[in-house]
């Protein structure tokens, strides 16, 4: 397999902060690779190095076939960058932004205008074309920002948290656009706080924490690594939660090392299970015997959220869960 992005031992230090501490990455051509990590993990730093905006202190990387330090100009020809914060001219209209950046990609004036109109239509911005970007909503800005990053259908596209701040519809639009690009052969490196996004789009995921890759694999592999299936019980009364947690813990064999999750807001108790066919009826029977009313019970695969929490020990800040570990 040829790699569109190949990085080895990337290191970057800012003063006393080691932003990257030996990051390896291998992204196959035409795939979507997710870079997942809590705030300050080093995602943006990695993207900045791979897009030639910043020099690594150590290690090496090749993007689109060229070295990011020694052949920066060639790398720039093969990449598109959509940074974490919208980078647009706020006085110009969306169309004027697209035409300007198209011209800077050396499209002829007519081609730049045609491309601008096409992208405005595709991202649902066609009716805003004379409004200055400064008056756009956050979501519109984000979509325009993406459109600018896609002007030249770059072979390798970097998206740093592309859907942060978008409503569900905007997010779906972005996902569709990314899928469309990938179908044409574009390679995408995507950083995200939304684990669902990595699950939806990425074929492989690197989990980054404190400047290091702590896990790498397909979303399914990462989920299996957490230990198979999980059992979830939702009870009717919050007061029943401790008793339910104790029962679930006993049946699934959870001890001090494997925790039972209790979420008071959704009145949910969850734990990993080894033998799903035996555990489900047993838990139901035990709960019934204890007089606890069950609203919902299911065995399911772990979410990437749980993988993330397990690997980094950090609550994903964008999900407002109040999950607490409770050993039964």
């Amino acid at each position, binding site marked *: 397999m040829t790699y569109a992005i190949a990085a080895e031992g990337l290191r970057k230090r800012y003063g006393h902060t080691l932003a990257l501490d030996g990051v390896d990455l291998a992204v196959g051509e035409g795939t979507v690779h997710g870079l997942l990590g809590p705030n300050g993990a080093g995602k943006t730093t990695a993207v900045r190095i791979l*897009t*030639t*905006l*910043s*020099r690594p202190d150590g290690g090496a990387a090749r993007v689109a076939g060229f070295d990011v330090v020694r052949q920066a*100009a*060639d790398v*720039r*020809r093969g*990449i598109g*960058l959509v*940074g974490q*914060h*919208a*980078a*647009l*001219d*706020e*006085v*110009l209209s969306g169309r*004027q932004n697209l035409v*300007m*950046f198209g*011209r*800077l*990609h*050396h*499209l002829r004036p007519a*081609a730049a205008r*045609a*491309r601008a109109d*096409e992208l405005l239509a*595709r991202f649902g911005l066609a009716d805003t074309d004379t409004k*200055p970007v400064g008056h756009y909503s956050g979501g519109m800005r984000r979509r325009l920002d993406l459109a*600018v990053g896609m*002007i*030249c*259908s*770059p072979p390798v596209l970097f998206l740093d948290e592309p859907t942060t701040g978008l409503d569900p519809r905007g997010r779906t639009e972005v996902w569709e656009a990314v899928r*469309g*690009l990938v179908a*044409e052969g574009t390679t995408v490196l995507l950083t995200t706080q939304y684990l669902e996004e990595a699950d939806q789009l990425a074929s492989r995921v690197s989990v980054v924490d404190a400047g290091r890759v702590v896990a790498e694999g397909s979303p399914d592999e990462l989920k299996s690594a957490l230990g198979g299936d999980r059992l979830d019980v939702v009870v009717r009364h919050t007061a029943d939660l401790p008793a339910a947690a104790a029962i679930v813990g006993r049946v699934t064999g959870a001890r001090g090392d494997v925790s039972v999750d209790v979420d008071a807001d959704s009145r949910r108790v969850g734990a990993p299970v080894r033998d799903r066919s035996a555990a489900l009826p047993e838990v139901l029977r035990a709960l019934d015997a204890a007089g606890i009313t069950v609203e919902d019970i299911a065995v399911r695969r772990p979410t990437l959220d749980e993988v993330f929490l397990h690997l980094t020990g950090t609550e994903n800040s964008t999900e407002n869960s109040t999950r607490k570990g409770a050993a039964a």
Partner: protein
Amino acid sequence: MSMTVTAPEIPRTAAARLRWALADGWTVTLRDLTHWARKPGQVVAGLLFPVMIVLMFGYVFGGGMAVPGGGDYREYLMPGMYAMTMLFGIEATFTAVARDAAKGVTDRFRSLPIASSAVVLGRSVADMLNTVLGLLVMIACGLAVGWRWHEGAVRAALAVGLLLLLRFAFLWVGIYLGLTLGGPEAVMAVQILVWPIGFLSSAFAWTGTMPGWLAAVAEWNPLSATMAATRDLFGNPGAGGTTWIAEHAAVMALVWPLLLIAVFLPLSVRRYRRLDR
């Protein structure tokens, strides 16, 4: 997607690369010109601000100002105001550069396959065009309040050339500060720098009326060199002096800007390339 667009090959010959850099520079300049068209109020305010100062000093404070040789105060004031206008330009350059850096637009430019010189070139052409416009407005204002050039068109044109050279030097100071000081809010800091430099010169008052140490500071101010040199070229009162620096104003009006350019141009280019935030 209905249309796949790919970027053309990077040109390999020096001539083709230069053509690209010029084209990219022009694209960046056009962007600024579009700003003017979309925000004409801001442009007009920028042009009228120095006019207001002329009226204030020319008519409100001007009566009490001593002019060497007893010349007309407004004749003395105008060349000073022209140079001041060049100085105020720093704020415009700074704000534009700092805003782009803060908004990530600079980073986006840096991730594109364009020469770093192109962005800077585009910025300087736009600012110089704005300056020429501003200078024309100021000259019209000067003519309206009774200022004249007395030594012929050639020497007047030379004086304008010196003023534009000074603005070009300040342009690089503005770019460097814009890339170095954080966001556009820091324009306050730049104003705190700009105003004393403007007033501690021979713009409004003849240095002969200042206490000794202040006169020395004002005379060594790069602005004063350009002011004295242009007063001489326009044939306005107040040129010349007894100190070394005042006698060599014409040379210093070249030396100061060239020195500023020699320092701040390479600093800015380095800062732009290394911008690592």
